[in-house]
């Protein structure tokens, strides 16, 4: 489960990853949850069409799911097993720019360890991205 937003510029970087997720991990289902304050279904549909997104997206109008899941920013990933146990929570990776020597994936190693029956080394990382709720989204806008 990945908390996601059609406006979030950080999420754009994961379009390819999320689009190909079901191909690379056929044994794991993926669902994105759009919880950002003020984000409506029409905007989400337009973005899905414009960016050709192929993963399922739930609209969490009002952001209650994000609050229940302690999620303040997008993207934020949760890996959950069949018994609904939380296996990993946090950022997908620490992507900053291509070919970053410090690049480190977080979600993929957790998936790999889980599927291999090994303990997951890093179960929690700090998320980064755009705020799900912010007073700045409801202040008068700079642009019309």
């Amino acid at each position: 489960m990945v908390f996601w937003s059609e406006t979030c510029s950080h999420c754009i970087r994961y379009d390819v990853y999320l689009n190909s997720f079901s191909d690379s991990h056929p044994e794991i289902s993926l669902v994105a949850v759009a919880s950002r304050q003020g984000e409506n279904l029409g905007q989400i549909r337009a973005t899905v069409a414009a960016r050709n997104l192929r993963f399922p997206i739930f609209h969490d109008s009002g952001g209650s799911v994000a609050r229940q899941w302690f999620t303040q920013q997008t993207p934020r990933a949760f890996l959950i097993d069949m018994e609904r146990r939380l296996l990993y929570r946090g950022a997908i990776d620490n992507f900053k720019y291509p070919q970053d020597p410090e690049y480190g994936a977080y979600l993929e190693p957790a998936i790999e360890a889980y599927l291999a029956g090994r303990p997951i080394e890093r179960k929690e990382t700090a998320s980064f991205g755009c705020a799900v709720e912010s007073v700045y989204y409801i202040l008068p806008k700079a642009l019309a």
Partner: protein
Amino acid sequence: MPNLFDSMFHISSRIAEAGILAMNSAMATMQSAIGRVAGQDPPRPPDKPPLNGPATLDDATADFSNRLLRIGRTTQNKPEAVQSLLRSVLDAFNKSFGGLEIRDLRQWMALPFQLPLSFGTLLAQQSLRALYTAQVVGPQNLAHFAPYMLDTFTDIHVVVSLQYKEQIQIYREHLSRFPEDSDTRLLLGKEYIKLGLYLEGSRELVEAARNPALHSEALSESAVANYRAGNFNRAIEDGVAALEALPGDDRTRYWVWLAAQKLGGYPDFVPENARIEVRAGRHRPKVEFQEVATKIGLDKTSAGRGTAIFDMDGDGYLDIVISSGHGGCNLYRNNGDGTFADVTVGSGLDECVNTFIIAVGDYNNDGLDDLYITRLGFYVGESVLYRNNGDGTFTDVTKEAGVGCWGPSFTCHWVDYDCDGFLDLFVANNFAGVFDRKNPNRLFHNNKDGTFTEVSEQAGLSTLHPTIGSAWGDYDNDGYPDLFLSSGLGRSQLFHNNGDGTFTDVSRKAGIDDICFGGISLWCDYDNDGWLDLVQFIWSLEEDVLHTLIHGDGPAQGKPMRIYHNNRDGTFTKLDRELGLNGCWGTMSGNAGDFNNDGYIDFLLGNGDPHMNRTEPSIILEYDGDGNYHNVTFAAGLPYTGKGHGANMADLAGDGRLCLIISSGGAYPGDLLTTSVFRPKVLPGNYLNVRLVGTRSNRNAIGARLKLDAGGRSQHRLVSSGSAFGCLPYEQHFGLADLSQIEALEILWPSGLRQRIERPPVNTTIRIVEGRAGCEEVYKNKPLQLIAGNQS
């Protein structure tokens, strides 16, 4: 020696400044007199966000001016754009003035008189800033500098409200109608870079570069885009092509050099005039560092902002909170072995998004450190007070405590300014937009019952100068902490604490009223003479920074960071190059501490600015105890790039090695960086860490002074949060070099009590309780399991 032109300019500036201040004051007085006649309530500093738009006339005129500026910068110079321009102006007027509450006919009648006065005071304050800017950068550089800053100030609102998609849409629609408009294409390319879409950005920039007038700028930006995308060869090619058209462009040369470092050196095709050498930061260090953030679990990737280091749960170990410009705060608990667990979720701090500077203080003296957090800095935000519940959770008590503050808040400090044993709160406010007015600084007095009363006005701390840095320290040793304000664009100010709840501006008398791009600041006794000196970090122009990197020191007209040396008579002497502080850096955060354990205070500077084409290393300066600071940065193992916020120092593993912690990242979503922790490779010398617990004084002992006598000389420390950006731990770190014995440690508590510990131990961390004899070792009963490599 200043030339005749400079002297004339300086004198005429002083006269112009006095005239503008007088005009501003007269207009403000008239406006408020009209307001009284019309039955208006006197304006109060805002404590909550104006969701319906500006609530006062002064805020509305400022908001409208900012919107007009933004419209002017983004509207294309085409006849076809006139209609949309008029629509935008009308819309801006509605947004700016639509939230005004005008209650009756009298107030409507007052409006035609107040409106021009309001615009008048706004104009006066802008004129003042323009005058100050001209003094700092030189009148001849204003035309170059103004657009550089406007770019940032007109953009922030779009970024924080996540409107970049709309902005890109505006550019794209325009380009679909006017595909040859390369000015707009350049803006679009830069916008993509801000979002981290580097290849899309480069594509537009290369296209824009077909216009000869934009050729060098567009290719230089494309070099930045390609460097950030990891295409280092392409970055060098674009950079070299840009330099052919503009050979003197050091910024592009620096990006080419950075790309060449990634490839192991310059490729053969790079001509000689496109090459540089970085000469700064090569002095031999006393200690070398290794980066351990990932190893110890502090590798938070984000738009990192403030850091605060404190013991959140009373277990003795130092924990960390790191704020973030885009997402939420993260709380890390020390596992007791120098590694950290992310315990953010459910702590309450995770709900605190868009955060900036953190101040740690036990305001209710319950033994648990509480947090005050400002938001966003260069954009207005709602500060928040979190009470520590002691169980890993924090509760937002801003409203009941009465410390709400809505504004462009920068540094915040806990300080017991009246020495009553309870911490008071100070919040420094800047300005947020080009046409914003100075937002008042706020001083909140602790009522000792969990609530606060605002006393800023009666304390005499009003100022027109926008404040970034603030620092509290008792410079005249009269027992009461005094206040220094560092202005980002105005005069530095020193306020003497009169001891009766009021302050007196003594800036001119003290010799501290310089005009500069003042950054964060701190008090410390760098020369260990028992009198606090003042350290003011400076935000320098990019060209001065590049000059420093390439030549090893800043240009003659540059303004390096300075130490105001305390003359012990209420006056100070400004020292910079005299102390070897000859580098110019765009310092955003910084702190002081003896990281090489040689007994002298060193500095850590976190540098940069929001522009995507500006990257700047964090810098470390070692003091040799003999009147010279040395830049040892790269020789000590720190990297060449960065955007350093929340620069902090702490002995995270309790083993005497002061780590450098830098929470990095820029304003734009494409400018992500990872928090760095640089740890000394070896223990560079003996040490003693001291923690104080106040009983009559405030529990954190903020404001306490320490004197350690060892080896025939004294070291002096002040318990403070340092520059606040980051918030230093209150644990005091003394380096002892090869000394293995301390004669005595003396403490002067804020309550006035003097306490002396004879022969305290060495190479350990001790706790001293006010009024209680002796000391105890913090880690004695629960020794740290030292992290790997610790024993080396």
